[in-house]
């Protein structure tokens, strides 16, 4: 984990791919894509079971270690409507029941539009972007954040693009690592889900990149292009 100051607020970046906003006792994650493996299986693509359980375990651990009272999900909570498989939904429900007092805000993403909101009894507060809690705005798609009035004045958290950094090794090979991608006004979180892909980003000067390895978060220098 790593602590930074952004938008005048103290933030903790966890290698479990979450941000803790200390003052608001809020844990922020993006793109869990729950049920993605199940949706794949449903479409005849073999993906082993177990990813959902692993992900909710990680989420519980993050909540415990950060002491957060509120969870903000920056969209794409569910991957696909065919992913609302009984097993997956049961796992998620059990997890919800373990955290009855946790306030959960889901900013709907493009996948949620299609997959639908979580069942009402799970007590998610589902909203369309942007969700504002000063000084921050919370969106799914960075483009909507940039196009809104927030683009130059405020500070917004976004997901959607699953950012990763390409680290070049000394031998010319490279390895990808999910990353937190902070520019002056926008912060994009890595995808939370285990079974999610990642998209290399092209940082500009002044951007800050925090690469995530399984147990650490490290800022890497960006080179001017």
């Amino acid at each position: 984990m790593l602590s930074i100051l952004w938008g005048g607020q103290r933030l903790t970046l966890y290698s479990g791919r979450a941000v803790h906003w200390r003052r608001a006792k809020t844990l922020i994650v993006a793109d869990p894509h729950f049920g993605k493996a199940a949706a794949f299986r449903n479409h005849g693509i073999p993906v082993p079971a177990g990813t959902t359980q692993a992900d909710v375990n990680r989420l519980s651990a993050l909540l415990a270690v950060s002491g957060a009272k509120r969870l903000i999900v920056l969209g794409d909570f569910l991957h696909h409507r065919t992913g609302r498989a009984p097993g997956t939904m049961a796992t998620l429900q059990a997890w919800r029941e373990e955290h009855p007092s946790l306030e959960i805000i889901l900013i709907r993403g493009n996948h949620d539009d299609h997959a639908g909101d979580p069942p009402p009894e799970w007590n998610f507060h589902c909203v369309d972007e942007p969700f504002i809690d000063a000084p921050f705005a919370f969106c799914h798609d960075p483009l909507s954040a940039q196009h809104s009035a927030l683009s130059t004045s405020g500070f917004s958290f976004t997901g959607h693009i699953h950012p990763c950094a390409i680290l070049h090794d000394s031998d010319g090979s490279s390895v990808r690592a999910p990353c937190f991608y902070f520019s002056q006004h926008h912060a994009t979180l890595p995808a939370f889900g285990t079974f999610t892909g990642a998209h290399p980003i092209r940082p500009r000067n002044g951007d800050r990149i925090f690469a995530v390895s399984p147990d650490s978060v490290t800022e890497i220098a960006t080179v001017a292009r």
Partner: protein
Amino acid sequence: MLEPIEQWFARNGWTPFDFQRETWAAYRRGESGLVHAPTGTGKTYAVWLGPLAEWLHEQSSGAAEFPSPSGKGVGGEGKSGTATIEPNGPHPQPFSQREKGVEFPSLSGRGVRGEGKSGKLTIEPGGPHTQPFSQREKGVRPKTLRGRWITPLRALANDSAENLRAAVEALDIPWTIELRTGDTPQSIRQRQRKQLPPALITTPESLSVMLSYSGSSDHFKNLRCIIVDEWHELLGTKRGVQTELGLARLRWLSPKVRTWGLSATLGNLDQAMRVLLGYQNGGIGVSPVPERQRCQGTLICGDLPKRTTVQTLQPDDVDLFPWSGHLGLKLLHQVISSIEAARTTLLFTNVRSQAEIWFQQIIKARPDLIGHVALHHGSIDRDIRKQVEDLLRAGRIRCVVCTSSLDLGVDFLPVDQVMQLGSPKGIARMMQRAGRSGHQPGAESRILGVPTNALELIEFAAAREAVSPSPSGRGVRGEGKCGKGAIEPNGPHPQPFSQREKGVQSPSPSGRGVRGEGRLHSKFPDSIRTHPDQALTPALSQREREESPSHWAPHSIDVESRTPLDRPLDVLVQHLVTLACGDGFTAEELQSEIRSTFAFHKLTRSEWQWALDFVTQGGPALHAYPQYARVIRGGGDGRYTVASLQIERMHRMMIGTITSDAMVKVAFVSGATLGMMEESFISRLHPGDRFVFAGRVVELVRVHNMTAHVKKAKQASGIMPRWNGSRCPLSTLMAAAIRRKIDEARRGIYESSEMRLVRPLMELQSAWSIIPQPDELLIERTRSRDGHHVFIYPFDGRQVHEGLSSLVAHRIASQEARSMHITANDYGFELLSGDPIELDEDEWRQVFTTTNLVEDMLGCLNTTALARRAFRDIARVAGLIFPGFPGQNKTARQFQASSNLFYEVFSEFDPQNLLLDQAKREVLDRELEVTRLRQTLDRIGQSRIRIINTQTLTPLGFPIWAESIRTQHITSESWADRVRRMVVVLEKEAAMTKENSPQRSQRKHRKASSIVR
């Protein structure tokens, strides 16, 4: 039966080659086999005219013959009007017919079912017409598929079609010949789904696609002949295995079918044939067949002796000649002069980027050659390639700069001159390329080598020696004179295999008279061309024939083998889904069909069960994936079918085992397509970036829908794309030939001009270090700013060296923690370390031991990205990855995930998955070539080890050092450790960049990290 063909040949003044006649006769006898003949000698007609003659015969006599592959079994002679089948007699494929009630092909057309029970078949009264749709009169085309031609390359399909058509038309046979490849328009596919033409040309992928539609049993029941072209290209690849599985299915659907293959030079032709023909469906049942009968096959060798001459362009000044590198532009002007001296030239390069660079450089140096020089490689759009081929054929361009895209080809594009840019790498490959010149039978193939660095001079000298048999009298010239081999028409032929076993290597006189030794007996005949429209060369007179034997270099040349694949489960998984999409299958039946292929004849029961489980429920019973549905098992008959129409559609799009990156179409904004490009390259570009493609400098405008839209760039320079997977290692045989040359240099023998040219360099090597004797392993140690270098020279080819260097680094590091950096080339490898590696001879011996080889290799495997990389292909083949395609909708994209992600998820949540195992196996067998590695270690074990400390990099060491751009990363780190470490390194480097001047050595920069733990 063969009269019409003979007459046609006679009308044209041609005389068939003996190997053609042999093939026709063998086909007539109902045999399957493999024809081995070089390009341009008429092998197409050897295999194609048999089926045509058969058809003509049936038409004229109204009789069908029942040749069965083994000469026994089903039926007697159709002529007699009745066919009897002994109920209990030996019928090779009764199973398929009985079980499925398949109509007995073409006997009565009425589909006599269960004939095995009745024991008797009666032909309809009213005459002996045997074709189902009473085509007694000539001119009625068959209503179902008779002949199927499988070609590895779509690009060849059109050429093949022309060839096949020429014969059909000349013989006045009313067959249409159609194509069915990935390029075939949807409307034609639709029609073909209902009604197949009498002859069809497909790729292996299209064959699979066709099997994925229901009704294939009807479509293929009358199939008589399958011909697989360029079989050597498919052998040893997953596409080859896909072909094997497809063939097994066709044989099962149509038991009478005969399989013929065409192959170029290979060291293991006998094995190639066995793979092609598969095993007979001997004992059918669940248990592995105890007595596997080899499918009787006939290996026919039409290899007309043809001498290959190797020459090289030589730099005027060897001092200026680079010690390493691969561009070779120093010889640009000499290359241009050579192009101008010949009417037509093929300039072969080893990789696509090299072709692009050379094309650019040639037209830059000589703008007047624009329009006379063209570029041809696999990524360029098919239409453009076709244009180039046509222009060359018409003699309207002088030179084509090309890659292996022009290695293949039925009979097309003979040229005056063939040039090879850079190391020939393999003997078979070089001979095949050389064969593009001197197309007249009996003429000499010549290849002009363009070495790109000093050591490649040695390689060309070695290659020349390898293709010119020693003057010791091996392979007596003029064998051709001995004439025809005795061909026993029907009898058992005792040693067709054992003979071929030695085949190419030893044309011992004892081989005479045995069938299959066509090469020894193929008389140099009157001229024949396979393109009837080509001008015919006048027949050689008897006298000329007598005088020309010096041109027939006896074929006692060792050429490379291709090892067939063993049990690639990803291909099996794909095939299972393919068949489930089509007519479905039952487990018991399919198991024996699958086991009849060479690739899966060793398939264990548990592997089979795993594959079935994988497609039906994901994992084995206890680890079944929830809600998983791909293939389902029907209730009543236990038939496996595909779970949904959507899966069926997706699967068809995924069929194909060609392993490549996702490809992006490159097209001008105005619309014209240039070709295909790896997505990984395009994704690194920004709009406005320029790059070189298809011989032009273009500027990226945007990427949209899997298409990179480009426009012509104003500036003349751009980034040179680096294509993946373009590296071709030295073959074992070439490596051995090079070792011989180096040993000659050691003994001061510099006979060829290349060796004389490289002499100063070799003498420098002797002075600064040594040239090792054949039974010595040279280890050089030196120091530089980069650290302590150890160079080790097994001279065994890059592939072996890459595996060996990983192993050595791993073993050294396991004794003493240290960081090391390794680099390999075709001659040896380098270990670079911060601290000196102080091992004495005994300790080095321990490092090179074969004890625990596999364990240690697996030990360093976890440490490399190799398995992950191998899994990339496996995931695609097994249908985990849904490749992108132009215009796909959003839904499709939601079901795409990278192979890396799959690898991680499988490793964590289903580690028992056999596909992971396969990835490991592939890396060991194919990539690291453990077998070859063991041989190298054995050789080292018997060698003396010479450790020499040198002042500086030696002529042998320098090229390896210079290679370090593509070093291999060897470390025991997990991905996590690696990210962690690199993050630290990046931080440091970033700090240093701020302090230091930007001119810091790139190389030093690169060498800053890489750790072996």
